[in-house]
């Protein structure tokens, strides 16, 4: 019973703290496509919104999402200044395929590999695809798991809102 009470206390604490928007975790190490290490504090977009999308090479919905956005990415960038950062959770089995996969698909996104899944854990990602929208202040304002054709429209609305807030 004690355990349940404690768990409840923890969840309540969680609820209180939730009142504020969480920010992106800093100083978590991820890998750039050239093999060098990068800290998550380097994920920045000059006060404009960012989309952070967790994906994997073997995940079809993830690939559909990133390919769908690719078609409209330039328009989105012009309209809102948004930057998409794609975080691959591929492990050793497929991590070496990430770079050719990205180039082959012609994705113009910033892509990182989170092989040890530290970033994934810090962001509480359970399934892929899992997409976050971060506003100009670095706060996570929206998140969504799963992708279906058409849902990129909803994402754009959120990004527009975040961009408008940032501009204020």
């Amino acid at each position, binding site marked *: 019973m004690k*355990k349940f009470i*404690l768990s409840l206390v*923890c*969840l309540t*604490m*969680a609820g*209180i*703290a939730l009142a504020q928007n*969480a920010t992106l*975790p800093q*100083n*978590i*190490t991820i890998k750039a496509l*050239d*093999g*060098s*290490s990068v800290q998550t504090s380097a994920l920045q977009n000059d006060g404009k919104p960012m989309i952070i999308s967790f994906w*994997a090479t073997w*995940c*079809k*919905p*993830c690939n559909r999402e990133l390919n769908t956005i690719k078609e409209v990415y330039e328009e989105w960038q012009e309209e809102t200044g948004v930057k998409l950062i794609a975080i691959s959770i591929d*492990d*050793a*089995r*497929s*991590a*070496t*395929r990430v*770079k*050719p*996969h*990205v*180039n*082959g*698909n*012609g994705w113009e996104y910033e892509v990182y590999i989170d092989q*040890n*899944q*530290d970033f994934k*854990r*810090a*962001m*509480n*990602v*359970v*399934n*892929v*695809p899992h997409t976050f929208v971060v506003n100009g202040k670095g706060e996570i304002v929206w*998140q*969504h*798991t*799963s*992708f*279906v*054709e*058409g*849902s990129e*429209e*909803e994402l754009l609305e959120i990004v527009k809102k975040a961009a408008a807030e940032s501009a204020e």
Partner: protein
Amino acid sequence: MKINYKHYTLLALMACAGLGANAQGIMGGHVTGNIQLDGQISSADSIIGAQDVPEKLLMNARADILYTNGDFSAGMRFEAYQNPILGFNAKYKGQGIANYFASYNGERLSVTVGNFYDQFGSGMILRAYEDRYLGLDNSLLGIDVVMRPFDGVTIKALAGKQRYYWEYGAGLVRGIDGEVNFNSIIKSMADSKFRFTMGAGFVSKYEDDQTIPYPENPSFKLNLPLNVGATAIRADLSYGNWGLQCESAFKGQDPSIMNDYIYRKGQAQMINLTYSQKGLSANIQAKYVDNMSFKSVRSESGEMLYINYIPSITKQHTYAFLSMYPYATQTTGEMGLQADLMYKFKKETLLGGKYGTDIHLNGSVITGLDTSRIGGAGTYGYTTAGFTPGELYYADASLEVAKKLNSKLKLTCTYGYQIFNPIVEGHHGDLHHNHVVVGDLTWKLNKKNVLRFEAEWMGSDSKYDSNVDDKRCGDWIMGLVEYNFTSAWFVSLSDQYAYNDGVGNYYNLSVGYTHGATRLQLGYGKQREGLLCIGGVCRQVPASNGLTFSLTTSF
């Protein structure tokens, strides 16, 4: 009782740290987390391998709570298995705080105490990780220090014991790893097209002595090494569109139940060459593994307590029939080759049509090693004939063509051929030769309504034999219809049916609702274990028969 009060003390400290920070007016920090519930109301079905469940309701639950305040973070995980769902080891039964940690993440130094996950390179000598859907958790309980003394250099040192269900394995794991990115430390290379990263690591495992009888003569026992060391060196080079990754690992004498207590040393070699440009990517990969099973407890034969991780190089397929025979790395010995080619035919070309066409070719061959046996436990084990291949374990080839037909229709067609040797799953038998054809059509009715159809066929020369009880044998057909209303709702209906030489009829109806990072899914029917991608996400699912439900949420 699975937990002791030390954990609570730590939690209290973590809570106080958070509150203290609040009181002093420093940024209050954030609590985030995720909750996952998976349940089954299951009935036995020998045809699909779902076991009888006397409890009727099986449920796994877990909640990760993470507190972050600037560079400081702390977290814990509550897990409850009452009782574990099918596919999870019965040793998980119980509930409690399975995982807790406190961590400082500075710019130059990170320290984690408690349960942590980390890996050296690709994990050939050390990878502490978890796969929540497979019930795998190799987290280390101990201390993990990561130093970045200057840009481009990372040094890790760690020590701990591995999680074993609700306990910790007796073996102590210690390791150190260094990685240097030459483009960062050598100024003249900073903007070079040539990118170069190198790393090396050592891992040592200590385990107390125990009596393992020498089977040839029971009055003798094996003289066990108490310290087993492993080392790996790796390099990641790229020049423009070209990339080359290699990693080489060696392990000292490590007699264990996994290698039948032989004294041969282990090694693993991996090399990967890639070329990519816009619209074209290719990679070729070779792997050689000899006696590289590395566990922190020598007598553990199950899926737990692996210190290292040697992945399969075969492609991770996501269509049901293509992934029906997944290939698992034979850490005791295998060699293989894999090649992958992706090409996009441009728009407005003969093959590209109006929207372009993607083709994806993939092939792999995995064999055993060509070995000569010396003896069993208490001997050197075997010798190998260098890099000569042995018995065929697995081979596959697949061609996938994806084409957008018009603004509403997108079609993907896949053909795959597989040869599967049941020996990789520990059974002797004939090779299975399978042909698989998949058609996948997405029909975007309008902005909010999307229909998806999937049809699969598998022709196999294997026949169901009740003595072997491999439920994948025979010829199969499958159909799937999925309807999505925006990304919020989906309904999917599918059926897999063995129409020739096989047994089984796996029908499944699933309904899902997603709102933000919360997702609820209900299913009814018979489910084969494996990777399942419906409703816009991919996840590993266990075999089940009956009603299943799943809730995940992040906050």
